[in-house]
């Protein structure tokens, strides 16, 4: 099959799976998950085929796979919808396909497939476990099929976003994913915390999305197209760069880029819209958490990278982007240091890593950003799944001891899981090292080092230092997490009895860990000592082809390399040193209230926005405007209308309308009807005949009188 058609088909299987499950198979759990996984596998297969064909093409950047259809006639020309796979989207497609497939597979195990139904499980609450001859065991998720339906829809959104060749369908996929994250965060809708988190995430991202929509609309109104390849032509870009937008001195390009960027800020949880992501950890499982923390949020970054030519037009915007990115990176990293929930740590680290990418784009380090995006997606997915596996193992312990009050996600309840869950431990270790950029072997090192090198080479000293600091913190809290979770001795009874999870959960871990290490080697810079040039810097060549002018490779500089070595190893070492024998949360020196409460951002927002809006709606609108003003006016209307109505009735209605018009017309109609009645014989042919006669007579008259 032609590649273009194949690309068209890529997003469909998960969507079909969604409808299939929702409409038909939701009663049958096994069928549901096989449908979902089968769909994910089909998409994965297609993506791999597309990817391999893409790699095969020479100068893929100049002539990517693209096809489009006329969708909407807009006056003189068409609004086109279509698909586009160029080097960038091919690379993204690669990791999306892998991660999505892994998630689907992993969910089977995570939701305790094969376990008995819970004794007193309710839809909308996490499974409480069942008693199987005597002792209690995990119980299967009550809404198992629904979960697979949701992630199927999510996968559809992600694929759509990646393969689409214009901002509109990208936005569609974007919003579908927003919906999915809402559904998945609020998956256990019986838990108030989950409900609120879902609403919070939805509202926060919505704020960004509205701006993004504004940006898209502005872009369309000023260029008349939303297709990337039509926007990124010399003439269009130049026009955009020259038109002034009239808003604080930005060019149109700048303003559009800014709007789109706000959308990204919402979607990939950049400061100041980062607040939803930590709460999103209320989502039932690390699976859903990882869906919208490792995959979906990269959609935001992807959007920015996708529109990079537009961003690069306006220096102001670039500066803002870079600033926000760098700030988020350091800001989130500091928070992550003080979190105890294994998932929240990862959430904040995600935020800070995304900040990395955003900062990289802000500095114009295009390829570095893409590279880090992909490596990060892999090892962060690995970490989330690993944490899920850990929690699952801990729940095993919980079921063993029966102490359901213990929080299986608190790292201070863990420890010493190294021996209990070897596979999870090693894979988690790999992921953690990759995240903290452990030198040479891990993928994270190469991508992060490239960003730092870029920052240094282009002389963005402030950003360079910030990012280096962030990298140090990253390494630190990663090691803290690993140490608290796996090393040392079990702190609780549950941790003692945790044991390894089943293959459906460990297989994805192993596969992802391969990428977490290996993916770095496709992007080793050429001028790197010793290693450089051993493996050609394929990634740079391939993805660099996306841009019109191919970005040149940086000259090697020893400073950033040393920096990243120092921060990575130093952070890891320090983390291990401090936490090697911390027994309880009290002994943790770094539990500053400020950090623990995420700089009180939730409270601030609550005070600044939520309370006022509540006041506005309840007091101002409801009590004053509605009850007071509007009702008051209405109450005035009543008597007045009554008076007018009565007079009209007595002096006009009764005598004139009723007696003269009403009865008079009725009588006349009755009379006419009585006399016309015989015509209506009820014989269809006569009706037809009559109409034809009339028609021919009238037609003839018209013809004779008017035309002739």
């Amino acid at each position, binding site marked *: 099959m032609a590649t273009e058609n194949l690309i068209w088909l890529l997003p469909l299987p998960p969507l079909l799976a969604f409808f299939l499950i929702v409409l038909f198979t939701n009663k049958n759990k096994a069928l549901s998950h096989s449908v979902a996984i089968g769909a994910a596998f089909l998409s994965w297969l297609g993506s791999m085929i597309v990817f391999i064909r893409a790699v095969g093409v020479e100068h893929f950047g100049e002539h990517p796979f693209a096809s489009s259809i006329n969708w909407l006639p807009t006056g003189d020309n068409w609004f086109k919808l279509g698909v586009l796979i160029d080097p960038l989207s091919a690379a993204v497609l690669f990791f999306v396909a892998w991660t999505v497939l892994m998630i689907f597979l992993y969910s089977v195990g995570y939701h305790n497939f094969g376990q008995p139904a819970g004794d007193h499980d309710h839809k909308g609450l996490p499974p409480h476990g069942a008693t199987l001859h005597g002792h209690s065991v995990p119980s299967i998720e009550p809404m198992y099929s629904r979960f697979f339906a949701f992630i199927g829809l999510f996968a559809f959104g992600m694929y759509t976003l990646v393969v689409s060749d214009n901002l509109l369908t990208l936005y569609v996929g974007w919003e579908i994913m927003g919906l999915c994250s809402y559904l998945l965060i609020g998956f256990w809708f019986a838990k108030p915390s989950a409900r609120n988190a879902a609403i919070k995430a939805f509202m926060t991202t919505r704020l960004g999305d509205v701006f993004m929509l504004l940006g898209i609309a502005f872009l369309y109104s000023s260029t008349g197209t939303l297709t990337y390849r039509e926007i990124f032509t010399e003439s269009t870009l130049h026009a955009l760069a020259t038109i002034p937008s009239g808003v604080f001195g930005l060019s149109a390009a700048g303003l559009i880029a800014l709007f789109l960027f706000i959308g990204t800020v919402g979607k990939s949880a950049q400061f100041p819209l980062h607040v939803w992501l930590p709460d999103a950890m209320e989502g039932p499982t690390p699976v859903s958490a990882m869906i919208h923390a490792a995959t979906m949020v990269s959609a935001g970054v992807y959007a920015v990278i996708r529109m990079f030519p537009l961003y690069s037009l306006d220096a102001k915007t670039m500066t803002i982007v870079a600033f926000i990115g760098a700030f988020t990176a350091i800001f989130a990293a500091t928070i992550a240091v003080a979190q105890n929930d294994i998932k929240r740590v990862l959430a904040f680290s995600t935020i800070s890593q995304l900040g990395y990418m955003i900062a990289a784009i802000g500095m114009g380090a295009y390829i570095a950003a893409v590279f880090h995006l992909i490596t990060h997606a892999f090892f962060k997915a690995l970490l989330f799944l690993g944490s899920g596996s850990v929690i699952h193992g801990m729940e095993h312990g919980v079921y063993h001891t029966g102490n359901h009050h213990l929080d299986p996600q608190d790292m201070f309840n863990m420890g010493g899981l190294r021996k209990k869950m070897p596979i999870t431990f090693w894979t988690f270790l790999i992921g953690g090292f990759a995240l903290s950029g452990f030198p040479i072997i891990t993928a994270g090192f190469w991508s992060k080092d490239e960003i730092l090198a870029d920052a240094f080479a282009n002389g963005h000293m402030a950003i360079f230092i910030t990012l280096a600091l962030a990298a140090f913190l990253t390494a630190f809290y990663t090691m803290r997490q690993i140490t608290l979770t796996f090393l040392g001795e079990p702190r609780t009874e549950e941790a003692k009895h945790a044991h390894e999870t089943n293959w459906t959960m460990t297989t994805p871990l192993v596969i992802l860990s391969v990428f977490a290490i290996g993916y770095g080697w496709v992007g080793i810079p050429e001028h790197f000592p010793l290693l450089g040039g051993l493996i050609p810097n394929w990634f740079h060549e391939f993805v660099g082809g996306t841009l019109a002018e191919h970005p040149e490779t940086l000259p090697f500089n020893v400073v950033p390399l040393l920096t990243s070595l120092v921060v990575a190893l130093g952070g890891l070492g320090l983390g291990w040193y401090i936490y090697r024998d911390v027994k309880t949360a009290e002994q943790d020196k770094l539990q500053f209230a400020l950090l623990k409460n995420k700089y009180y951002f939730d409270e601030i927002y609550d005070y600044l926005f939520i309370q006022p809006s509540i006041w506005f709606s309840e007091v101002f609108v409801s009590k004053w405007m509605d009850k007071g003003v509007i009702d008051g006016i209405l109450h005035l209307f009543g008597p007045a209308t009554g008076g007018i109505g009565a007079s009209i009735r007595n002096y006009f209605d009764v005598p004139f309308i009723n007696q003269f018009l009403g009865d008079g017309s009725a009588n006349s109609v009755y009379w006419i009807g009585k006399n016309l*009645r015989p015509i*209506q*014989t*009820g*014989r*269809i*042919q006569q009706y*037809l*005949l009559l109409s*034809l006669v009339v028609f021919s007579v009238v037609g003839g008259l018209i013809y004779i009188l008017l035309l002739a």
Partner: protein
Amino acid sequence: MIPLSWYLLFSAALFSIGLFGVLSRRNAVAILLGVELMLNAINVNLVAFWRYGDIAVMAGQVFAIIVFAVAAAEVSVGLALVISVYRRRNTVIAEDLDLLKW
């Protein structure tokens, strides 16, 4: 080569014949026969215009096909109606089916 006018005149004649059938037959089935004649006349026109217009534009033939479909639907429903009427009223004389009058 046959001039277009012949076809048009032919279809006009066929149409009128069908119209006569529709207007004058007593039997409902016979009326439907007349309708078929009219539809055929239309089709001849469509195809003739296709042939004598721009050959590459297939609109004429396509419409002819659509008319086939419509004719089939019309006949099936119409005859079904006739039969069910026959079951209830035991007649298919159009003039007897005049419940529609006052």
